[in-house]
């Protein structure tokens, strides 16, 4: 005799499944569906929270204050950039990497930036603001100081045996980096003033920043010609060529574009690593995070 339970079970077909849903099960499924539908219908008018979801018990993020960006703020920011340029040039002087005609040029550039800063300060006061007499803290913290640290840091290389070799940079190497920083900073200052021409509300202010933009463009071009010579008069990009980094450094030219650019600029500086690369920094014209708002004190 064969026990029915010993009969081999074959997989059920879809038809078999339908056949095995009895009346009792159909009632259960139907009841559940009705219940779920009722719940969904009851919850239909409940709105979800529109703020981003939060995980854990972190405190609620406070709303950030909104500060006005007016003429005084823009002019204070312009002053801060001028003072930042002066800081960089004075740092270069202290490093002792400027000699001869370049040292003379830098003296003149310091005088020009100081005069422009004072002009922006006077316009700030005329606009009802308080003159800003120091550097731009955002740009100093996030650009200038890291760049100067990279420029002064020794070259650290690891050989095939894993031994670390540390080599101090030469004055010439440091000087070249400082010059490239100065050119980049002059370009950024010129771009900033160029941008401000259409943001400031008074003609006298617009004229002042237009003149500053033109003068700082001359600063940049003069630095290029002084240090790199007449071969750097015009960027190859303007005559269908390409720019090739030399020794991990972006070459600069007296004339780099047809129109004044307000794009961010990359600076490669510091000692090279094992692959011949240098640290990369991006410098951009001031924006909301680097404006010198009226609420910001120098003290």
């Amino acid at each position, binding site marked *: 005799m064969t026990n029915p339970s010993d009969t081999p079970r074959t997989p059920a077909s879809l038809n078999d499944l339908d056949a095995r849903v009895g009346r009792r099960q159909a009632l259960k499924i139907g009841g559940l569906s009705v219940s779920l539908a009722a719940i969904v219908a009851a919850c239909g008018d409940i709105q979800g929270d529109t703020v981003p979801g939060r995980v854990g018990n972190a405190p609620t993020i406070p709303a950030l204050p909104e500060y006005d960006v007016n003429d005084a703020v823009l002019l204070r920011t312009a002053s801060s950039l001028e003072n930042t340029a002066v800081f960089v040039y004075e740092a270069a002087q202290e490093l002792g990497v400027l000699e001869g005609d370049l040292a003379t040029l830098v003296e003149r550039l310091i005088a020009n930036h100081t005069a422009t800063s004072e002009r922006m300060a006077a316009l700030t006061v005329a606009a009802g603001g308080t003159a800003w007499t120091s550097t731009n803290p955002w740009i100093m913290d996030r650009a200038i100081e890291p760049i100067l640290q990279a420029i002064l840091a020794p070259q650290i290389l690891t050989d095939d045996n894993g031994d670390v070799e540390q080599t101090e940079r030469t004055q010439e190497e440091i000087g070249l980096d400082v010059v490239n920083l100065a050119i980049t900073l002059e370009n950024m200052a010129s771009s900033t003033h160029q941008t401000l021409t259409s943001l400031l509300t008074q003609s006298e202010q617009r004229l002042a920043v237009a003149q500053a933009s033109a003068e700082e463009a001359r600063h940049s*071009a003069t630095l290029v010609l002084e240090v790199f010579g007449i071969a750097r008069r015009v960027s190859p990009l303007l*005559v269908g060529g390409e720019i090739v980094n030399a020794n991990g450094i972006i070459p600069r030219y*007296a004339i780099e574009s047809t129109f004044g650019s307000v794009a961010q600029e990359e600076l490669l500086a510091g000692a090279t690593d094992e692959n011949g690369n240098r640290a990369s920094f991006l410098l951009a014209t001031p924006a909301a995070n680097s404006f010198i708002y009226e609420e910001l004190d120098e003290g």
Partner: protein
Amino acid sequence: MNSKGQSLVDFEPAEPASTRRSLLGAVGLAGLVGTAAAAVSSAPAAAAPDRPTDADSDLLAAALGLELAAVELYKAANETLPDDFADIAEIMAEQHEAYADSIAGVIGVSSAGAANADVVAQLSGDFATSDPQAFGAVARTLENIAVATHTELLGTYDSVDAIELTASILAVESRHATVLTSLAGFAANLDEMLGNTADALSLTGGAS
């Protein structure tokens, strides 16, 4: 570091800054006296129109004439200068042509045939030279005048488009002036390299 520009040994500046005003008088550009440039705009930029006003368009048309004059002059120099320096003249011509095209685009006119005839007539002889240093001297004068003119005009414009375009032009024309000043033999003269004492042209509006 030493200057990489041309030697200034025994070089007598052919056109020191103090003579630029006399150049303006000599070329008869002072006759283009206008009142528009003297009328300083005080319109808040925030409330300023994007598109040029009628007054802006008149002044931009005059600036267009100046740019096209520069194109003609540099093209003339390109024909007479030695190769390396002809290339510089060609690049300058191309850039001024780009400025002319942009100005024409902003005010909605054709740039063809609108060069400032007075500027061309008075400077074409000096531009048609085979001497790079002489070319540098006259070209830097033109660039400095162009920068001064655009700067003065910028203070009179009401529209954002006119202000932004002009600011982007004068920033690079300043670089032109510095490069050409170096070519003219003044590389070691920081007053000439970094400064601009040129007078703006007084433009009545509309290219001649």
